[in-house]
């Protein structure tokens, strides 16, 4: 559960970059892609991102295994846009209510590519960023309150445990005669009961964890950091990469004349 996105033992170059630099780069790219709905800027960004994947320690197989729901969602979004968007240009397909024209296909493609180009940097970021490093950077560099950051980090560790606990509680309740099978109403009731059981366990665990943390001196006004969060030359390259991809995408779209600000949609 916990390792679902972060690759354990990832040694790739981007794992060494400061999480804040990676965040900034991803933010830039996402921002630019959110501004326009054309296919050109999205494809430029997408191609660049795919080229960068090895730097994050990802392979296409891993990407497909981890990111297939996103890829599927983008494909479905693209498809429905192409058949539902207002037609313009030559009609390519017409089945009753559904029709696909050159214009709507272009819009759909733009939608598909843009969805992928926005989703992939997030997958990329997660797979090469350790949550502990992220917390260190947020507390030491972004100056967020350390109690909040470390509390969240410790709680996240419990999420993986809760996934196991959910399965155990489900079995334990079946052993008491609470069926998780049956009609939807029975299933809903069983799920609610199971959620309550999980909630009780989550609160117990969280309380004990809080005691553990407090007993280790957590909660004071100041603390030192065993791991220093630093910026390095690599972070400049990461930022530069973000600027280049974002800028390149806009430039390419402007050059191709496809740049299409979302808020100018109706005009």
């Amino acid at each position: 559960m916990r390792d679902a996105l972060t690759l354990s033992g990832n040694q790739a170059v981007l794992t060494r970059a400061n999480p804040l630099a990676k965040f900034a780069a991803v933010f830039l790219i996402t921002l630019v892609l959110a501004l326009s709905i054309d296919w050109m800027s999205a494809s430029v960004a997408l191609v660049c991102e795919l080229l960068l994947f090895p730097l994050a320690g990802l392979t296409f197989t891993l990407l497909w295994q981890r990111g297939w729901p996103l890829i599927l969602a983008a494909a479905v979004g693209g498809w429905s846009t192409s058949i539902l968007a207002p037609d313009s240009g030559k009609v390519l397909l017409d089945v009753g209510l559904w029709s696909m024209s050159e214009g709507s296909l272009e819009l759909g493609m733009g939608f598909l590519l843009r969805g992928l180009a926005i989703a992939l940097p997030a997958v990329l970021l997660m797979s090469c960023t350790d949550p502990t490093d992220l917390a260190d950077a947020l507390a030491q560099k972004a100056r967020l309150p350390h109690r909040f950051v470390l509390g969240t980090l410790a709680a996240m560790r419990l999420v993986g445990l809760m996934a196991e606990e959910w399965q155990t509680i489900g079995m334990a309740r079946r052993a008491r005669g609470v069926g998780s099978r049956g009609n939807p109403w029975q299933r809903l009731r069983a799920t609610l009961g199971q959620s309550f059981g999980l909630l009780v366990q989550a609160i117990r665990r969280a309380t004990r964890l809080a005691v553990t943390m407090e007993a280790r001196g957590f909660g004071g006004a100041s603390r030192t950091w065993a791991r220093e969060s630093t910026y390095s030359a690599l972070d400049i390259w990461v930022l530069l990469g973000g600027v280049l991809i974002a800028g390149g995408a806009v430039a390419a779209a402007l050059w191709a004349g496809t740049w299409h600000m979302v808020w100018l949609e109706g005009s």
Partner: protein
Amino acid sequence: MPTTHDGGVRPAAVTARGWGWRHAGRTKPAVNGLDLDIRPGERVLLLGPSGAGKSTLLHALAGVLGDSTSGNGPAGDGGPPDSDDADESGSLLIDGEPPRARRGRAGLMQQDPETQVVLSRLGDDVAFGAENLSVPRDAIWARVHEALDDVGLAHLPLDHPTSVLSGGQKQRLALAGILAMRPGLILLDEPTANLDPAGVLEVRDAVGRCLDKTGATLVVVEHRVAVWKDLVDRIVVLQPGSGTQPAVLIDGPPDQVLEQARGMLTAAGVWVPGYVPATRRRTVGGFSPAGDRAAATNGEPALAPGQLLLAAEGLAVSRERPRRRGFKSVPPVPVLRDVAAQVRAGEALTVTGPNGVGKSTFALTLAGLLPPVNGKVSAAPELSRGAGIDPYKWKAEQLIARIGTVFQEPEHQFVTGRVLDELQFGPKHLGHGEERVDELLERLRLTELVDANPYTLSGGEKRRLSVATVLAAHPQVLVLDEPTFGQDANTWAELASFLSELLDAGTAVVSVTHDEEFTHVLGGTELRLGSRERRAPERDASGLNASGLNASGLDASGQAVPGFDATGQAAS
């Protein structure tokens, strides 16, 4: 007396004068009128019945009890003024100062290994306490390496994921995190209650080594005396808080206290070394007179003793569900494969084996709660009674009337907010068997608690309730996962006696356990996982494992054990 030992640790002194504490929202104080002096470097084992306030004292010393309205006088006097707030009386000091003012002077380890780990990488977790005490960075890492070395985890890399550690390793990691704070007082609150025998020794030995090295003061709460007896130099027995009597009942060197208070301690369910609680013997041949059986089977056709009920063949098990790899579904890698077992009416099957070998997973699969990865579990017609051959495919109501499973953690199985509702839940769903509830309440001493909320019960009461609730549905096969884990001697004896009665009445009992005494009381067959060997239980010459401790933490020291004959064969 306070000397600085290796590692710059100055042992702490504890002083309590008329100290008392009432938790917020409670009417009675958890501790009242405690007078206690612990000298620097002393090692104290704290004993007493549940409700004596042992954990409260430890939490107070660790400075984690929260805020109180202090100075309201002894909490026993004329009733508490305001029961919504916690209330403190008297004084409790570490080195002459309140514990909360001495952050980092005391380090606390609790029972549940999962919540003793804070961060996801080994080194970071050890460093956490030292960081909070504002130790400079370079000094932190020196302390981390030293602490990991002291607890015997230095062979693991600093970025080792903490989630893959065993229970014993997690507790040793917690100890390292405490040591890195260089505390003068180490507080252990049942540190080994959730561990298997190997884990218990791992942790005990690590604590011993660290104390020898640092000279820190130790206060440990643990009901398995044999584990800690040789490590401590003083035992303090507490009694539940009252307005009139002192909180400390007996105080002195281990041997003297165990001699003096033996009767009181065994009555309180403490595992005193050399004491095995008396349990009911299985009747001859393992089968009861016909009368017993007829009464218990409740109108259903009586099963012939030894009747095959459930069989596993070529079974491969895993807790994981098939995983998705893109569009493909990949079956999980089994933790255990090729297991065969037979469950028979009136016979006990004990599943043993090293930690992590998949004992619980096997039992859950056998009990129809997990699908087999490979092979099959099949119910005999006498058990399935028309419900089909595969228990996993049974409906929940069909399952509970045939195979009952008692989980290791009782709270996982509570489905209502009241003890009585909890017991009636199964029979109500089945539409019959409610008359059995009263009998179970009586038999498992729950009558007084019928209106209590199950979550508020003590550990022993929760265990008894979880067994009773499963039995209320009247299953012919009972599966128990580590039923004696962390239980006091009284609950242990009750449980063992009760199960031996059930066995005599024709129920099949499958138990996953590390507890050799328990295995011997039940008799039957042992399925040893990890070695693919099945054997009748036999005691080795001494009844001890390598360390002199058996599974329930008893020091059997060659004493005659009730319920066993001279050769140590389970009396059957």
